[in-house]
């Protein structure tokens, strides 16, 4: 059996450059050069990677939390005076539509302004990580916006105007419902059917029925079912064992996302977290995993890349850290494998939810 502390002592030669990673995330939160233009509509997810990354590093003190909380709230699509846009509410990824900055309602009427499911998800998680109490989130509006995105087959689109639909957005929806402690935003049964339908002949999960199984989509499937509290209802023991086998075969040194593809740092989290949720991460090889992740560390600018000697980016920097956290790397906070936030942020959420339940009980 792996005894993580003993094993880590032996292979600590590759050093983990904590301070470089802190600075990498700090810079990410400030200004990015124009070549990152393709991230414009997803800036909130980039913020999540940096903020959650700093949380994993126990370095949230280096940023101005209150200013960041305000910026996130400025991205909330709030109901207009006549509430005609409820099915479009949620959070935007950025200010790219050109709505004037505002942290409070009522919402501004605009023909093309609407939330995006992945931004609502990362907006809420980022607020939690920064210590906010979500009191300025219009929860009912978020849930109405979410409901409008689910299709007949159980999957979700990203935006009400229409987009591709697949299992990624089921995961975002499950996180939103879980955090808001309210599952009225989705038809769980239909979502479970879509997830089951996405299981491949090889026992991994694809993005949808018939599609190739993949580490990222397998995480979305299993993590969603865990958040819903339906893992063992949706999947039999036999199926769970088969999924465990598919996942554990992904380890090559680090992990890859599909059979016969190269390893990539981010799968140390996607597949690692899935294995953890299935109680078998303990049977993976921590040393080889750690060595791979650290081989993709950028020793100059910090962060991690998908491969060694490649450019780091916020996603791989964050997921590389989470991958290390899963194996018990010292001085990294533990990560909740389904919700993908630190256990510390998760406890803050639990306390908040307890307060909501208490208030609901005493409310007139």
């Amino acid at each position: 059996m792996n005894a993580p502390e003993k094993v880590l002592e032996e292979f600590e030669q590759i050093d983990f450059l904590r301070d470089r990673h802190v600075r990498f995330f700090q810079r990410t939160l400030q200004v990015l050069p124009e070549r990152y233009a393709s991230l414009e509509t997803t800036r909130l997810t980039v913020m999540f990677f940096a903020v959650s990354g700093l949380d994993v590093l126990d370095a949230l003190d280096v940023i101005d939390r209150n200013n960041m909380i305000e910026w996130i709230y400025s991205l909330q699509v709030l109901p207009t005076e006549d509430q005609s846009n409820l099915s479009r509410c949620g959070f935007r990824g950025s200010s790219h539509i050109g709505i004037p900055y505002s942290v409070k309602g009522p919402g501004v009427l605009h023909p093309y302004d609407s939330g995006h499911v992945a931004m609502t998800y990362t907006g809420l998680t980022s607020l939690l990580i920064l210590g906010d109490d979500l009191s300025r989130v219009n929860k009912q509006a978020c849930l109405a916006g979410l409901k409008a995105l689910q299709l007949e087959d159980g999957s979700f689109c990203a935006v009400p105007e229409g987009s591709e639909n697949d299992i990624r957005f089921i995961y975002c929806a499950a996180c939103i419902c879980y955090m808001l402690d309210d599952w009225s935003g989705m038809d769980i049964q239909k979502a479970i059917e879509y997830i089951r339908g996405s299981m491949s002949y090889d026992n991994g999960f694809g993005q949808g029925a018939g599609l190739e199984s993949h580490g990222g989509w397998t995480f979305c499937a299993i993590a969603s079912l865990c958040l819903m509290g339906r893992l063992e209802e949706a999947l039999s023991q036999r199926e769970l064992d088969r999924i465990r086998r598919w996942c554990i075969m992904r380890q090559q040194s680090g992990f890859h996302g599909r059979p016969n593809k190269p390893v990539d740092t981010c799968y140390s989290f996607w597949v690692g977290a899935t294995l953890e949720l299935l109680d078998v991460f303990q049977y993976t090889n921590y040393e080889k995993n750690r060595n791979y992740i650290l081989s993709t560390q950028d020793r100059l600018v910090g962060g991690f890349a998908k491969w060694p000697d490649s450019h780091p980016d916020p996603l791989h920097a964050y997921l590389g850290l989470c991958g290390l956290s899963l194996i018990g790397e010292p001085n990294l906070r533990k990560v909740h494998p389904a919700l993908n936030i630190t256990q510390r942020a998760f406890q803050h959420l639990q306390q908040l939810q307890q307060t909501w339940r208490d208030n609901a009980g005493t409310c007139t």
Partner: protein
Amino acid sequence: MFYRDRKEWADLEPVPQDDGPNPVVKIAYSEKFSDVYDYFRALLKKDERSDRAFALTAEAIELNAANYTVWHYRRVLLQALQKDLREEMRYITDIIEEQPKNYQVWHHRRMVVEWLNDPSEELEFIADILSQDAKNYHAWQHRQWVIQEYKLWDNELEFVEKLLEEDVRNNSVWNQRHFVISHTTGYSSPAILDREVQYCLNQIRKAPHNESAWNYLKGILQDRGMSSHPGLLEQVLELKETHCSPYLLAFLVDCYEDALENNNQKETLNRALEVCEYLAQEKDTIRKEYWLFLQRSLESRFGPSFDPTVNYCAVYY
């Protein structure tokens, strides 16, 4: 020339981005970039439906093809202005060739194909994209959509075989094989099932260390009785001598497990435990702890009812 200096655009007030006093993850745009998008935002606000708007969307896309709002607005304009969709197909073909891993461009193509109700270019186009990256997930997804939507199954198995000849380890192609067969002939007929089993074994003889082939073999048999397919176990045991791999051995364990479920024999269990030991200690050591865990599970499920060396506190899964 900047839009702000063009007199044909003087009627529009450009709309800047407004991130407030403390922007986060701010992207530093050049003047040119900001100029195009300030005017995009102005058009969007009025929901203008015009040719100048349509032309501007192409510029905005060139600067950031991942902006889904620009694509949505372009689609609104395509319909409102009754634009030539064939020309749009040519346009989106070029963009996808340049940026084949972008979600928005594939979604846009799908919409245009649907509006035209014409999939006739798709299989060839996707084949071309796959010739540049044979594992592009978006390309395979679009291909499956087209085939299923427009019932273009006829030549797909041939396409699959050709690609497997080029790279028998391409997992996406094995997946496509399963997709095609399960939606056409299915696997129920013994003739088809046997053909597929033999196909797998032949590919394994050529390239033994290929997880995709073994996953496919297990996949088509796992719910039909792995240990009951005539002669299979014997063929696999033969291959073990000359074409061994961790995947072959794992397949063997699964065969034995299947056999045990139908007929719990001590001899079968011992063989399964031996293979787990062989995997753990020699052939798949990266997963040593997993194979030992599996060994314990099998022992606990199928072993004699009491064994003092087994730790009953270890939960089965």
